[in-house]
């Protein structure tokens, strides 16, 4: 059958038409490309009128292939494939050419842009002529979900799904769920107690019949794809028998080894070598820190084992790997605090009474090391003046260019707590005060009324180098007050550095395991920054909370719920459509060398011992093409990406070179 190709060049308003002569491209394609029977340009091809135009042409002209020169296929491939399908053309006979991201948005020379657009359209036309109709495949969705991270975003996602009746595995690296929110004293702007609103959710998760809690565990490996992931979780040895332990806490009480708690207490308090991070921990099962336990380091002690009433201490316990089958994954891995030592001029680590924001959270927490009393490092003196330094490790080209979003509000919260609990003067050094969410600006106004001092200027340094007698023995905060246009030096007793939010140290590594990419700053990349904020480029993997970008508690909760809703939708539908772009092996000619078996990153190739040939497991194949390229006999074909199609595409791109050569 002779080819009947339709070419459709979109203006995208002026997005494409601004730097490409779209009318010329359409006219030229109609005249010069063999087999083209219609070639049109249109203001917005994705509009219903544009789609209707394509459908009408398919029906009237009997098109055998459609090329749409528009935006990225990420955005509208589905749109145009559906249009073709409605008109009776197999959707895989529709090819998109990315004229926007690949040409008009990255180019300002109209002549050059037009020339490149012609080459790309030519390539797509040559390719589409050789494309084969394909039928999408459907697979069942495993109703179980893996949630990685037990902070507030992960907890919310877990509860939404569990309450809907679906099984959830919640993996948390620390001994208890709760995340950073468990460390906070109050939450802004309502000032309700963080623990009081968090712990009910924690215990609900801990007791939920649909939730399997895997604390003190790490995600090791992910294989499979949407609907049917296989994940490996490493449960780190707690050295406590989970079933025997009642969580009575006698072991912790009697343990003679005290250790500075760098994690939960941010270095401000102590814990024992056998410990639960905090009283409301879920689960209440302690862990032994083998780096500090006297039994593990020196072979002496065993007090915990002696005092345990249920004989639950097991020094021989080993890490254990469990394999789970899940249909979807929600990543809610959170953040870490910027290391304030990276800004040495602010003195953290050198000057005793310079604190990080997380240290200060613990300092004013009623359950913290000072029972909520705001005192200096000597443990007894109340500060008479406190400076709060904004943007430490945020909005700074030498560390992180982005705004961490939550620090201004946390600083206001700190200011309020200091004013409430002490007689100290409070100075906030800010660049811009950022209070955009519900009732946040009102909270700022409230602090202005409460007498907090606001100095607009980025702090140059925090120093103990006194210039005037009144500065002796104080920490001096120097900044240019950009409202006054003057240098200010404020001597204070205590300085709080509002450290920025940073991606977890292993975020990238963990992301690679489940097919997530990271932004320049290291946050997980969502499918679309505005219209698809919790899905990712990997079907079946969703993101929630700060691991996707800095955000506050309400936004994290909303994202956790949103990710859960997306997953619930997938489970409720029960099946998921998978693109039929997979590899296939010509068994007649397969030599059984098995080179492809080990190369496949998705473990999608099995070996038939009887017939001595390799075979692709279609449901697992992601169509990456690795085996196609590697097969020494050349008998593996990638559907939709076979040699003929790709060479035709290259040939098309080089149309003008070919012409020049003949001339």
């Amino acid at each position: 059958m002779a080819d009947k190709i339709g070419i459709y060049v979109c203006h995208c308003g002026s997005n494409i038409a601004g730097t490409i002569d779209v009318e010329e491209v359409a006219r030229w394609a109609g005249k010069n490309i063999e087999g083209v029977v219609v070639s049109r340009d249109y203001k917005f091809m994705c509009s219903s009128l544009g789609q209707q135009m394509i459908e009408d042409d398919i029906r009237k002209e009997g098109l055998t292939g459609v090329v749409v020169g528009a935006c990225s296929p990420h955005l509208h491939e589905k749109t145009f494939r559906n249009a073709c399908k409605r008109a009776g053309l197999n959707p895989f006979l529709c090819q998109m050419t990315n004229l926007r991201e690949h040409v008009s948005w990255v180019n300002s020379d109209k002549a050059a842009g037009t020339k490149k657009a012609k080459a790309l359209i030519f390539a797509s036309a040559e390719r589409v002529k050789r494309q084969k109709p394909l039928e999408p495949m459907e697979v069942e969705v495993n109703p179980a979900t893996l949630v990685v991270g037990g902070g507030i975003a992960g907890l919310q996602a877990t509860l939404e799904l569990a309450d809907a009746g679906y099984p959830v595995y919640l993996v948390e690296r620390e001994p208890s769920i709760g995340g950073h929110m468990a460390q906070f004293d109050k939450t802004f702007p309502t000032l309700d107690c963080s623990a009081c609103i968090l712990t009910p959710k924690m215990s609900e998760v801990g007791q939920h019949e649909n939730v399997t809690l895997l604390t003190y565990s790490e995600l090791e490996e992910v294989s499979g794809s949407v609907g049917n992931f296989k994940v490996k979780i490493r449960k780190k040895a707690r050295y406590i028998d989970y079933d025997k332990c009642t969580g009575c806490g006698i072991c912790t009480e009697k343990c003679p080894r005290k250790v500075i708690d760098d994690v939960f207490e941010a270095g401000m308090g102590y814990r024992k070598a056998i410990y639960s991070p905090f009283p409301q921990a879920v689960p209440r099962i302690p862990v032994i820190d083998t780096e500090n336990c006297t039994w593990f380091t020196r072979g002496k002690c065993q007090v915990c084992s002696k005092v345990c009433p249920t004989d639950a201490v097991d020094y021989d316990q080993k890490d254990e790997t469990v394999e789970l089958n899940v249909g979807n994954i929600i990543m809610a891995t959170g953040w870490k605090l910027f290391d304030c030592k990276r800004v040495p001029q602010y003195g953290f680590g050198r000057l005793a009474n310079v604190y990080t924001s997380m240290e200060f959270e613990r300092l004013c927490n009623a359950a913290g090391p000072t029972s909520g009393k705001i005192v200096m490092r000597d443990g007894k003196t109340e500060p008479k003046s406190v400076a709060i330094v904004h943007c430490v490790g945020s909005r700074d080209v030498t560390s992180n260019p982005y705004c961490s979003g939550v620090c201004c509000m946390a600083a206001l919260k700190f200011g309020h707590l200091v004013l409430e609990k002490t007689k100290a003067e409070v100075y906030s050094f800010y660049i811009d005060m950022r209070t955009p969410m519900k009732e946040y600006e009102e909270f700022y106004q409230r602090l202005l009324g409460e007498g907090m001092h606001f100095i607009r200027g980025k702090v140059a340094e925090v120093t103990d180098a006194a210039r005037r007698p009144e500065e002796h023995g104080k920490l001096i905060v120097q900044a240019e007050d950009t409202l006054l246009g003057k240098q200010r030096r404020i001597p204070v007793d205590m300085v709080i550095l509002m450290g920025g939010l940073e991606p977890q140290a292993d975020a990238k590594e963990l992301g690679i395991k489940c097919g997530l990419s990271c932004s320049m700053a290291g946050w997980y990349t969502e499918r679309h920054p505005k219209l698809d904020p919790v899905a990712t480029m990997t079907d079946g993997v969703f993101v929630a909370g700060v691991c996707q970008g800095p955000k506050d508690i309400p936004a994290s909760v909303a994202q956790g719920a949103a990710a859960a809703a997306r997953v619930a939708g997938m489970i409720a539908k029960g099946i998921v459509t998978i693109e039929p772009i997979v590899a296939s092996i010509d068994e007649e000619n397969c030599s059984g060398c098995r080179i492809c078996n080990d190369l496949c990153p998705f473990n999608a190739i099995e070996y038939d011992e009887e017939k001595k040939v390799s075979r692709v497991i279609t449901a697992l194949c992601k169509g990456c093409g690795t085996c196609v390229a590697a097969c020494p006999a050349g008998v593996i074909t990638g559907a939709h990406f076979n040699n003929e199609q790709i060479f035709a595409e290259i040939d098309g791109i080089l149309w003008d070179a070919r012409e020049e050569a003949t001339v």
Partner: protein
Amino acid sequence: MKFAYYPGCSLERNAAAYDHSVREVSDLLGIKLQEIDDWNCCGATEYFSQNELAACAVIARNLALVEPQTDQIVAPCAACYLNLAKTDKLMVDHPEFGKEVNQCLAAGGLKYEPGRVTVRHMLDVIVDDVGETAVRDKVVRPLAGLRVAPYYGCQVVRPIDNNDNPEYPMKMDHLLSWLGAEVVDYPVKAHCCGGHLTQISEPQAFELIRRLLQNAQDYNTDMIICMCPMCQLNLDGYQSRVNGFFGTEFKLPIMYFTQMLGIAFGIDPQKLGFGKELVTAMPVLEAKLGGQLV
């Protein structure tokens, strides 16, 4: 380790002690310094704000004079170092400007290919290239008991890629600790000494100098160790004027870090230029290190 050596004008006169100690210490550490033949003044700080092209051409002449087989130049003076590095970077980053500079050089029959020569400061060479082990190996007279404040000044720590934090540098702190000295965490270590402000407004300049001396004294410092002739001149040469102006009684010797290296390596203080400073260093050195140093 072979470097082209650019002493600069200060090191010929008021900072001769710096030049002597650099040469002595380099010899001992196996750093070969080949003084650039017929080098000229770097123009200091003023010329840049008058005429950037001329300023750069004057500096680039020195880079052009570096022998073809040498690709690194070392300058002990902070201003010279910054000017040489800045000129090279301007020529690399702005090829058109680089061409203009080369047109100027062509009048003298010279040519400089931007980026060909890497500009280094003496401190970076000793800390990064020679390194801790080699420096410690050479120490025969540890500076134990001597409390020193490392003072970097403002020019060397401009954000040039030299492996140190421009806001709170640590390299000289480390180096002096390798010599066994007690290093003060000197909070004003990267603050300005006032530069040429003494010639324009004494009250302002003296206040800047006072802060540096006051802070060192607050920390019970025996001496301030610097790496820039301008800083040394201001803190040492103006110390008695500052005392007169504010009624203070500072008596802090201001020495170059290469002089301290030399002392720790057992080199004769005379050869290191000791005695050229106005606030004499010998009494405190002998008191702290014990006995005669010669």
